[in-house]
């Protein structure tokens, strides 16, 4: 059995094997082009965020006026995905502070999206930095979402956040009462604990007010708009996110071996903010979402062949995860182009 505990025995092994904060493979790319790809703009991200909020408002309004009819079901289904899945990519990109040129605009959206995707913002900022330092290094990476030795039905439950959201809520409660978990202590600097404490208090207050409103008006409707979409709208981000690293090599320092790039439709890329170009993102996290396709075109000859569709990626990932539940040594080995070995 692999021990994925962050800071546990596997962390020591990783350090002994030189896997901690190691140098990772970088493709050759012209510096002038990289400068263009790393350039930031406020306008494009603002249009994307506005379109997201408009879609949320539109389907939220449709869900409200159709409440009590069957039309509410598709309206809430779409609203839920916009809230509980699309917030993930906004959380992610603004967490890197690459969505907008402005740090304040990135941070403002980051805090909103963190609440929607149900993640305490400060802890996840540091866990994500660790994820980029030590990608899929067992014992170090706090964001290995799909572990080996785990029956696949548990991941089916995760389509609706059955374990992840309550576990996160438990941490919010602990943080709100002033307690910091061992996990947080492993990768989060002590001077940032107070941010986690206050973020948790604010997020819990918002949820408590929503519950109170639901009780007072004797309707589930407020919770269907705030809080519950983090469960019922979560399935799409799990479906997309599972293609990022699941089933690939662990404990390697080459992102071409532990990360996938998958071609996806324009609609999915709008929802996912081009995180389907995930190998490219991990190698160059300074490149904003809107330039990832250009980056992909510039370096794709040095990377493994991308998966042609989400379906094709899932067709590999799901059987692999089923096998890994009982065979933890099994993984998919990606082929690196011979010319750049």
């Amino acid at each position, binding site marked *: 059995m692999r021990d994925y505990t962050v800071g546990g025995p596997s962390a020591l092994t990783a350090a002994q094997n030189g896997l901690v904060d190691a140098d990772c493979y970088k493709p050759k790319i012209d510096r002038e082009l990289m400068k263009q790809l790393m350039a930031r703009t406020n306008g494009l991200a603002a249009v994307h965020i506005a379109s997201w909020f408009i879609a949320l408002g539109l389907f939220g309004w449709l869900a409200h006026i159709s409440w009590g009819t069957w039309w509410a079901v598709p309206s809430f289904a779409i609203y839920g995905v916009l809230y509980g899945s699309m917030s993930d990519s906004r959380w992610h990109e603004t967490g890197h502070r690459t969505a907008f040129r402005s740090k304040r605009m990135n941070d403002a959206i980051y805090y909103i999206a963190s609440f929607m995707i149900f993640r305490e913002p400060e802890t996840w900022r*540091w866990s994500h930095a660790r994820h980029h330092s030590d990608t899929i290094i067992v014992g170090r990476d706090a964001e290995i979402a799909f572990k080996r030795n785990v029956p696949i039905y548990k991941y089916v439950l995760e389509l609706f956040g059955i374990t992840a959201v309550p576990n996160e809520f438990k941490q919010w409660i602990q943080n709100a009462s002033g307690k910091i978990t061992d996990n947080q202590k492993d990768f989060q600097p002590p001077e940032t604990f107070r941010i986690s404490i206050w973020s948790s208090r604010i997020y819990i207050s918002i949820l408590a007010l929503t519950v109170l409103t639901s009780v007072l008006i004797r309707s589930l409707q407020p919770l269907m708009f705030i809080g519950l979409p983090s469960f019922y709208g979560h399935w799409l981000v799990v479906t997309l996110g599972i293609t990022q690293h699941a089933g690939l090599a662990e404990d390697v320092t080459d992102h071409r071996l532990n990360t996938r790039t998958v071609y996806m439709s324009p609609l999915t890329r709008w929802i996912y903010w081009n995180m389907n170009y995930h190998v490219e993102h991990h190698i160059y996290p300074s490149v904003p979402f809107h330039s990832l396709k250009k980056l992909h075109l510039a370096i794709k000859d040095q990377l493994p062949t991308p998966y042609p569709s989400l379906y094709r990626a899932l067709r590999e990932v799901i059987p692999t995860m089923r096998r890994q539940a009982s065979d933890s040594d099994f993984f998919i080995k990606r082929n690196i182009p011979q010319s750049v070995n």
Partner: protein
Amino acid sequence: MAEEWIVACDETSVAKDDVVRFDHLGATYAVVRMSDGVCNVMDGLCTHGKAHLAEGFVDGATIECPKHNGRFNVLTGEATATPARVATRVYQTRINNSKIEFLKVN
């Protein structure tokens, strides 16, 4: 204490809003030219993670680490965005005979 002006590179070898790497006696530096043309030399490695700032992104007086997006003020070395928290060292820099030089105190 001994002071020494060290030649980093030709003035023309760093474009505006860009940065180049300079290695000297086992140490590594980032030579930055901001959008107003002013050059500054700073320690090359990010104070947060093992990444060279010379692969980073320069925007105005800010340089961003290429690995975790931590940011530093090019003029003062102050860490302006997490995960960078510790300031980096910025050296007194001058242009002398079309060369970018910085003052190293040993």
